[in-house]
């Protein structure tokens, strides 16, 4: 056994047990998107029918890629940069691209966690601050902006974000968001302080707690009135929608981003595994649990949203009842929600003219059910509004925000590991700097960069990053991952690797998927996605308090300089791929006279014959 030059060889950190590894991978894959993106997609794309493209995408695109990443990380036992360098020096750029994307996604993702923390801190008050409007300066009336929109909207847009009317107006740093952001990064730091040792313990909580809360919400939600309406609305299949190619595209992209592949985090996690580990089973488990969690979460969420819609519908009806009662001097409570229709019929037939003149609302449950949102709109507006109506609001609010925090934290671990592991593997920093300091430096740099998101226009920037960093670059990286492993490393070698690790070669299904089905699907998705994005000039919803009519968001075009930044965000992370390939090629050409640096990964320096 050859001794390395450095006699102080540090053993690669290992997971304490398999459970930690599985929980970490599941926690990384299961994130905020499972809770607030999948239910929304399910709802707008024909409910139960959406599951078909979703599951097809999972089987043919998601699982093969997941298996590939876990296998290659476990075999080569390096982070993303090391892995691709090992496969071929020309592919080193793929690892750097992964690292860049992980960093960029990490900084805006943790800002969302900062918002969650802010709401969490505010959930300990009675009454909840987003349930009432504050008074205006004169103390004569409620705040105008709040009255015109709603207390929930006001709390989110004004008291939390203090949002500016458009992305060009930057506003100033909001100190409360800065300290929430600092806390978010401190929490991430303390969980990662000892690398996977501390992270492995933290995931026991962060990966399992969301399931507990989702179950509690499910039980509570199902006992609330109107829950069944919400569920029926969610899952009623609309088969026609499958003819729309957009549905398939969104299903494919949802699976892709949901599984958190191409970040380099999964490669990093599996590199800390023992070499002989059944990564096929791991991949299947992670993929299936991720999708199952999405489904489970959507049931809980939509039960609650169904309750919210029913409450809104009932209060609309109550307004009408009050109008009728007052106008016709009918005794109080003679008209109830149940008897409203009969009374209305009776009154309409006897006094049609008067009824026509009354300001009666048209209350439609379907309209309320259709008011859906994804992302921050779901969590901070719709759900918080629902929570106010539930008895014991503080408890539900606290539970909900801790759940979001756990979901986000476990995904953050993957993002940060996608940055830390390559740095540690490449030994970019001198050895005497301990790992804790490296982690601290990364967290500090991320925190300082993320301060842009605490400006008045911060939310707009988060949207930019969310839509453009975490989409096209990942698709490109994943495509190159396939090419790299299957075509450069070779299908045969990869099969041997898997045989070494699991004791059986990959079945024909996996081989066919890796060879052509998945890369082809990925290419189609990538091209279609770019085409769809390029068809219209990118727009964004802006919250403008002076807008008429209010409430609602303006749809504004991104200004040119922001558009340039968007292009940069899509292109810069993937630039390393061609750049590094070019650089290495040039190096190889210039170094041809001296020791040959073969592209052949089999060349082991120990057997070089020097002539």
């Amino acid at each position, binding site marked *: *056994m*050859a*001794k*390395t030059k450095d*006699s*102080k*060889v540090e*053993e*690669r950190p290992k997971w304490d*047990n*398999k*459970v930690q590894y*599985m929980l970490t991978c599941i926690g990384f894959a299961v994130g905020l998107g499972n809770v607030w993106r999948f239910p929304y997609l399910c709802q707008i794309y024909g409910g139960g029918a959406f599951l078909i493209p979703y599951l097809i995408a999972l089987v043919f695109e998601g699982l093969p890629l997941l298996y590939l990443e876990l296998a290659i990380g476990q075999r*080569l*036992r390096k982070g993303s940069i090391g892995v691709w360098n*090992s496969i071929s020096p020309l592919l080193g750029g793929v690892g750097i691209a992964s690292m860049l994307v992980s960093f960029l996604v990490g900084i805006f993702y943790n800002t969302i966690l900062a918002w969650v*923390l802010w709401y*969490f*801190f*505010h959930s*300990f*008050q009675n009454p909840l601050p987003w349930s*009432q*409007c*504050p*008074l205006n300066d004169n*103390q004569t*009336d*409620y705040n105008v902006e709040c009255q015109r929109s709603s207390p929930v909207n006001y709390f989110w847009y004004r008291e939390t974000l203090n949002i500016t009317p458009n992305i060009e107006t930057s506003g100033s740093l909001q100190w409360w968001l800065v*300290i*929430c952001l600092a*806390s978010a990064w*401190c*929490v991430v*730091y*303390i969980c990662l*302080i*000892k690398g996977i040792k501390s992270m492995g313990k933290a995931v026991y909580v962060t990966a399992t707690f969301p399931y507990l809360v989702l179950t509690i919400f499910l039980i509570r939600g199902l006992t609330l009135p109107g829950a069944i309406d919400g569920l029926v609305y969610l899952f009623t299949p609309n088969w026609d929608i499958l003819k729309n190619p957009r549905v398939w595209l969104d299903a494919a992209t949802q699976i892709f981003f949901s599984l958190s592949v191409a970040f380099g985090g999964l490669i990093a996690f599996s590199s800390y595994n*023992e070499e*002989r*580990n*059944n990564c096929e089973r791991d991949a299947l488990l992670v993929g299936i649990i991720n999708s199952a969690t999405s489904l489970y979460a959507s049931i809980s969420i939509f039960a609650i949203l169904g309750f919210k819609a029913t409450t809104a519908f009932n209060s609309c009806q109550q307004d009408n009842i009050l109008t009728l*009662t*007052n106008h016709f*001097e*009918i*005794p*109080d*409570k003679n008209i109830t929600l149940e008897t409203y229709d009969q009374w209305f019929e009776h009154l309409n037939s006897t006094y049609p003219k008067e009824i026509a003149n009354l300001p009666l609302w048209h209350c439609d449950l379907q309209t309320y059910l259709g008011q859906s949102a994804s992302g921050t709109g779901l969590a901070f507006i719709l759900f918080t509004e629902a929570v106010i109506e539930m008895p014991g609001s503080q408890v539900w609010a606290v539970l909900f925000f801790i759940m979001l925090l756990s979901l986000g934290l476990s995904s953050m671990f993957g993002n940060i590991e996608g940055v830390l592991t390559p740095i540690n593997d490449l030994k970019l920093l001198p050895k005497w700097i*301990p790992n*804790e300091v490296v982690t601290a430096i990364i967290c500090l740099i991320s925190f300082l960069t993320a301060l842009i998101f605490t400006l008045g226009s911060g939310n707009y920037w988060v949207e930019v990053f969310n839509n453009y960093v975490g989409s096209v670059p990942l698709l490109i990286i994943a495509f190159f991952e396939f090419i790299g492993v299957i075509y450069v490393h070779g299908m045969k*070698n990869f099969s*041997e690797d898997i045989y*070494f690790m*699991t*004791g059986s070669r990959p079945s024909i299904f996996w081989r066919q998927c890796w060879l052509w089905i998945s890369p082809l699907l990925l290419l189609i998705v990538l091209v279609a996605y770019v085409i769809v994005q390029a068809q219209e000039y990118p727009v964004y919803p802006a919250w403008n308090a002076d807008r008429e009519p209010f409430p609602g968001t303006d749809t504004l075009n991104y200004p040119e300089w922001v558009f340039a930044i968007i292009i940069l965000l899509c292109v810069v992370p993937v630039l390393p791929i061609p750049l590094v390939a070019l650089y290495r090629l040039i190096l190889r050409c210039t170094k041809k006279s001296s020791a040959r640096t073969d592209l052949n*990964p*089999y060349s*082991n320096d*120990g057997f070089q014959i020097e002539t």
Partner: protein
Amino acid sequence: MLFSSERISKDASDGYKVRLSIKTALGDQAYLWDEKEMFLFRSTMAYAMRGQLNQQFDVSNIIVCEETARVSFWFVVTSPLNTSNLVDKKSVEEAVRKHRNRINSAFLLTDETLEFEGIPRTLEAPFTPDTPPWLIVFGVVMGAVVAGIIVFIGFSVVQKKRKKNKKTPEDEDSEEEESRGKTMENGAANEGVYNMSFTDEERFTRI
């Protein structure tokens, strides 16, 4: 002297319409609206007017008309000095606003369920404590996190110092032992062709 209902309707500019929603407010505990309750209303209004104008208002000064099954009615207030004069609307409104709380509690109702048409409800100022509660929670969480960070870092510094002290006496011997026991990575992607004859039995890790 009784005013006829026509008189009151014409003088509606000085009268107020009142609506009570007793069942909405009290549910099962709702009381029946009868002439005793009406008497209570009139005396409560007289009390409010006394407080406002400092004149000896009496129950007879509060005239009620157009009572309906809704439980709604009109009322006007006559001046105790001259019963043919009505007290102006503004004074009545101010009296009601000042004593709203007392009037509501007499009937176990709220601003919404005991409605004076035209008199807006008193706004409840949201209770703002001196220290925002969220800062308290923030302080607790951050304090715990920062304390944890300091503990961890302190712990690892202490551990490293101990390792250093232990290592300097037994330098060369232990290094040999350590490096032999550890798994080696020689940096190459592939150790050449994997030679199957040296595989051990255990190929699968068990959870």
